[in-house]
């Protein structure tokens, strides 16, 4: 990779991070708006999440009694992992300088690291809600892991690599592969994973305030002010990154993958815009789906995840036997 390319890659990656950081609250806003409209409400507007964040950031930072450094560090770690993931994932470019540093496994592990930090923080509060949320979150995480890795496996077979850039490029070069059974099965499996990871219905309900059904919300119950702002922001970024990942793994068109630095930079604005649209569409679809679905009982979740695992396994099998 030439020097100018790497400079271009750095610029592109920075643009990605900025887009995700700024746009993710908007995505949440879009989704809430879609949901509100479908439920017959007016909605608070697309910018409401940003307003919430601003309000929270202005508040005083709170340290609940008996909590320690882990509690204070967790929002930072959660946000940092989300930002780094945003820099790696091919949102607008496949030439991120971090692309070689972390493949798909590493990205999912990185996101898991953020979850773990939050779970530890929840345990650190020594409240029953925190423990309950952490316990459930970890259970879901443990059960999601096989599906993620199997999906990655299935996607990596045609590309011969688990590096995200390589997978996306390979799909760009052979677009017909998107319609293959491998790809479809893996897409469905990965979609379930994204729902579980992002804590959406039917695995978790981001809007719930009934403690007994909460997962994510139970974990962050003790956060307030700027800490809560970071957690909310990071959650939105994680959702954006995950949706963007799904979008670009299965429909990478529009991404900036030019051979020269100048062309790549020129393609960047378009790529960012296309990405925003893709994610908005996916988010809207997800929100629309949530309206018509109920949250599953905690102990029905493994069935859902087992189902997605089977799809991923079939995808891998298909990639070998249909190849």
């Amino acid at each position: 990779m030439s020097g100018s390319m790497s400079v271009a890659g750095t610029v592109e990656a920075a643009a990605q991070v900025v887009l995700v950081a700024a746009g993710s609250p908007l995505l949440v806003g879009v989704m809430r708006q879609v949901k509100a409209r479908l439920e017959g409400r007016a909605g608070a507007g697309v910018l409401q999440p940003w307003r919430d964040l601003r309000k929270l950031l202005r508040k005083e930072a709170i340290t609940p009694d008996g909590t320690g450094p882990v509690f204070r560090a967790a929002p930072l770690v959660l946000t940092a992992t989300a930002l780094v993931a945003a820099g790696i994932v091919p949102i607008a470019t496949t030439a991120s300088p971090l692309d070689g540093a972390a493949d798909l496994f590493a990205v999912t592990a990185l996101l898991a690291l953020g979850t773990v930090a939050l779970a530890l923080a929840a345990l650190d509060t020594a409240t029953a809600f925190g423990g309950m949320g952490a316990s459930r979150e970890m259970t879901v995480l443990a059960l999601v892991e096989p599906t993620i890795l199997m999906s990655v496996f299935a996607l990596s077979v045609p590309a011969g690599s688990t590096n995200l850039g390589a997978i996306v490029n390979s799909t760009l070069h052979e677009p017909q592969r998107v319609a293959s059974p491998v790809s479809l099965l893996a897409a469905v499996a990965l979609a379930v994973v994204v729902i579980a990871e992002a804590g959406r219905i039917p695995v978790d309900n981001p809007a719930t305030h009934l403690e007994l059904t909460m997962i994510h919300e139970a974990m962050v119950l003790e956060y307030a002010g700027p800490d809560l702002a970071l957690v909310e922001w990071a959650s939105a970024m994680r959702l954006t990154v995950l949706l963007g990942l799904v979008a670009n793994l299965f429909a990478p068109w529009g991404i900036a993958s030019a051979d020269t630095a100048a062309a790549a930079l020129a393609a960047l604005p378009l790529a960012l815009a296309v990405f925003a649209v893709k994610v908005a569409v996916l988010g809207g679809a997800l929100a629309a789906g949530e309206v018509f679905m109920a949250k599953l009982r905690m102990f029905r979740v493994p069935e859902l995840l087992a189902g997605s695992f089977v799809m991923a396994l079939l995808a891998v099998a298909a990639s070998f036997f249909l190849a």
Partner: protein
Amino acid sequence: MTSVTGAALSASLGASLLAAVAGAALPRRVRPAGAGLCTAVAGAAAVVAGVAAMTGRSWSAWLPELLPLAGVRLAVDPLGGLFIAVTGAVAVCAAVYGVGYARPPRDGHGHGLDGRTVQAVLPLFVAAMLLVPAAASVSTFLVAWELMALASLLLVVAEHRHRASVGTAGLWYAVMTHLGLVAILAGLAGLAAAAHGESFDRLRAAAEGLSPAVRGAVFVATFAGFASKAGIIPLHVWLPRAHPEAPSHVSALMSAAMVNLGGYGIVRVGFDLLGGGPVWWWLLVLAAGAVSALYGILQAAVATDLKRLLAYSTCENMGLVLVGLGAGGLLLTAGARPPAALALTAALLHVVNHAAFKTLLFLAAGSVLRATGLRDLDALGGLRTRMPLTTAAFAVGALAASALPLGNGFVSEWLLLQSLIGSLGEGGTISAVTMPVAVAALALSAGLAVATFVKAFGTGFLARPRTPQAQAAAESPATMGVGMGVAAACCLALALVPAFTAPGLAGAVQVVLPGQDALTGQVTLRLAAASSTVSPLLIAVSVVGAVALLRIAMIRRARRRARLWDCGMGPLNARMEYTATSFAEPLQRVFDDVLAPETDLNVTPLAESAYLVESVTYRARVGDRIERRLYRPVVAAAAAVGEAARRLANGSVHRYLAYGFGTFTGVLILLAVTR
């Protein structure tokens, strides 16, 4: 004897013996320090020897006068050097730590760990573990192996006066380790007989020409023996008993160094001496490893005894190592050498990583045990303020053990995954079927490992103390801190710049697969067998940098303390906390069919009405199902046989004479008939 390797290894063994003498002869006051420091020197020398061997300075020796009827034959090649170096490093940490650990805590009731036996046997245990990878003949190997078993057995029962369970654990360990020895002895002696010689060189040369039946029998027998040492399901039963009951630095040595030698044995015999084999060998290894990884981590996930949890985690990690070895064997059989080298590299790197973080974890657990007298996570909690150093150490170890980025476990598991997914098409249909299943097992075990260590760290060290003992904990002595610190430093180094192990690992793998160099790159790891890359250092720098930026951005205001949300019910207390048991409950429910927990619900109604309850007791216990279903019947059968056999010696002199008369006439008849 002029080579660095030989000199360093000799120095190491000499220092071990000196430490043993010091442990036996010094007065109690200075005994732990004297013996511990000598052992640490021995460990350091072993690291030097191992590294020298890995970088190509092989060494061998032939001592015919030692060990009657056989002689001692030693040879250190890069493969053995790797294990010697790992053992030495673990020994350094454990020995330094042991100086403080053996000192009785303030309240006076010591564990008896500064006694002569423990202090003298520990260095011998280290020496025996160093000899195993250095052995180059069947007899030498077996004598070192059995010395290691005896020394570790003595150490396991060191605290027998304090807990009755120690004796039981020791018995399980003694029997299972002997079972392993019997299997290995039968396998290796059979191989030596078929090869007409017992030096490894001889075996290596003769193995090609042996019949498949002999090779298969040898492999299965030795595999069973090595698997039992490595704690592989279903031969693991000793491990979750012995490791918790042993003194913690001994647990560290056993869990981080001794079990590795099971893996070493499989590589040495399966790959090196026998030169690989048919597909079914490696399927066996792979299946055993995958099952072990899953079952081990599942048990760890629901365990509440901290050291038992770590012990089951050892089952898991050795299972992962075996998955790597099995995959390597499969690929080698299929002729795909670069992927095979990658799988072996991954397995060996995982051995190194596991040794680093498991040492750290056991040492930290020991620090907790010493400070509180507790191993039960349900009774711990809140140690982060009272034992900050130990907490930090455990955190580093737990991060590594959960195979997340910034931890060293991640690197080797990543390599392992790469080798598995990269080999989908290499071995035909068999690998196409097995590899996905192996990946799934690996993934589930990785996920459960995260849950397990979040539980261990979160309930044990965070939150608030659940018992007065945990409340009264105090930080451990400095030597223990040094021991943990060295281990933590190793973990961090392995996590950030794993590439520094690449030349050594390549040397070790090249013993088996000459000319293969699976891992390249300094900052970014590149693979010869696949185009995937990863850079642990860059990830770490990015994440830490982002955290630092955010921290700076958030620093501006002072924080205010506030009460926790208690639903308006009044202050929360420790009894309301989530415990380790409750944390693991969802997982236990999900895997109900595998774990088969024993529950016991007693409802006592009031005398007046059956509908009013006076008290409810509920007890749930997750035992080891394999032990219950597989071993209990055997033990019961043995007891029944023993009981029945007592009738053979019922005291009647007539019966005794009748045995003789019957045999006498029987032999006469036989001789008359078979003329």
